[in-house]
């Protein structure tokens, strides 16, 4: 069965085989939506579980995400053509003054693997750019990352800027990064905190009540 092979190819990070298996599944008249929801998203979810269980680490997760990407390159035009909606949208960025992008990128890969549309604002993102992006894209979620104790306060500043712009209730907020804790998330009144990339994807789904 090619979809089982596809599932394994994603977890093993075999991007060439993942592309081949995707094409075979499409040729066998399996719908792009079914391939995404019944094979690819569960595969990436297992990648997340393996990561949380310390069975795989960042290299294996990145390589799996790369295989997932090769599948999405094939599926995406078909999904759009079929009018299939994404599970949710999220604006992501590393806060002002912080140049770290690896953690944020891992979160993005796991979110995309979970079927989210991600708008990546990059690194060193000032509060006003987050506000503007929320206004423009009307995302279901806003994700912020900070790796430094000194830049973590920019998360709070961004939340304040959203409140000031009257947009705080327009989106739910999910935060993470090395110094960020649940206590800090509670203190600044944001809905979600995630310890790592795979949990971020899970918590994003929980926040939007997606099974």
């Amino acid at each position, binding site marked *: 069965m090619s979809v089982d092979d596809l599932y394994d190819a994603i977890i093993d990070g075999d991007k060439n085989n993942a592309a081949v298996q995707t094409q075979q599944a499409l040729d066998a008249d399996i719908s792009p939506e079914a391939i995404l929801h019944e094979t690819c998203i569960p595969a990436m979810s297992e990648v997340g579980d393996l990561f949380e269980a310390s069975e795989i680490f960042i*290299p*294996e997760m*990145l*390589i799996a995400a790369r295989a997932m990407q090769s599948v999405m390159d094939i599926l995406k035009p078909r999904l759009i053509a079929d009018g299939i909606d994404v599970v949710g949208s999220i604006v992501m960025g590393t806060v002002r003054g912080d140049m770290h992008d690896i953690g944020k990128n891992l979160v993005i890969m796991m979110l995309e693997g979970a079927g989210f549309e991600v708008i990546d604002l990059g690194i060193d993102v000032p509060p006003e750019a987050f506000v503007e992006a929320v206004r423009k894209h009307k995302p279901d979620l806003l994700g912020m990352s900070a790796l430094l*104790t000194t830049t973590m*306060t920019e998360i709070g500043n961004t939340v304040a800027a959203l409140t000031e712009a009257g947009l705080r209730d327009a989106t739910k907020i999910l935060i993470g990064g*090395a*110094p960020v804790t649940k206590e800090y998330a509670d203190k600044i009144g944001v809905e979600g905190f995630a310890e790592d990339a795979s949990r971020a994807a899970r918590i994003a789904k929980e926040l939007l009540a997606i099974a």
Partner: protein
Amino acid sequence: MTFSDMTSRERVLAAIQRQEPDRIPTFEWDIDPGLINSMTGGGSYEDFIEKFDLDAVMCGPDYIKKPLDNGYLLDEWGVTRSIGHEAYAMAMDEFSPIKTMADLEKWEPPDPYASHRFDTMKERVKRFKGKRAIFVQLRDVWSNPRDLIGYEQLFMKCGLEPDLVEGVVEKSINQSIKLVEIAAELGAEVVMSGDDIADNRRTMISPRMWRKLFLPHFRRWTQAIHDNGLYYWKHTDGNITAVLDDFVDAGIDGIDPIDPLANMDLATVKDKYGDQVAIKGNVDCAFLLVEGTKEEVVESVKNCIRIAGPGGGYACSTSNSVHSGVRPELYIAMLDAIREYGTYPLDMDKLAPSTITSK
């Protein structure tokens, strides 16, 4: 010589030999330039060391960073960097100089003998040699490959092109060994390297991958430090529980900073490794030294000393660095407490925890 005659240098060297000095030494991996400026009234790093009587001085090779038209900086390693909030300039992955084996073969490290290479160190050695311990900060197996290959690409290539990764690690360590040789001749006594291979929960790559690609070179590097007559005090953030045995077996002399943010526990490390390595740490600088009270800081110092002080082999410090968010008065309270409570023989009654009533 009585113990009270100990210089800062002797105090640190006694600690790294796992002995009890006259009192517990204190020194820092890194101190924010802005705080140096404000806390010394416009003085230098050297002035800060002297004013706050830190027992060790950090030195390292100097590299020229050339401004580029795109606003970034190009360093002598061929790495493009951008300046963020901290003085530290992050390497930009998209411009990483080594992407293929052909790139690696062509790539040459910066000339370790360049005339400017150790200017800062020479000055600091001149000012502090014999008085304070001279540390040289160099890189071990992770940070140079990360910057040369790019962070994300390094992770990918660990899985997909391990030969390339190992080639970069080998060339990086060969370079670091040359720098150790030169630094030893110039008067360095202890090497400190701060390559981080762990996040708050665990190593970022599997321990198996670490042992295959990186550990052999880490061992070679540790041996080279000792061959040059220096001690090695390894600094690393994150939860390193899974690889601490590897560091200790490789022969490191000290470990720093036992990162509390990553649930590293001072008592566990002292208990398990205290007879093999010296320990430095770990007054929390993520929250306590940023937003705590003086009383809480004093209690934390007492707690650290109570746990890691007995028997010596301990230096008390922040849990990472005196970064830009640290409040000067809290750092000073930490230093005062180390001096008040850290004199040997330790007074365990005085070190008993007090109840803090006010916040």
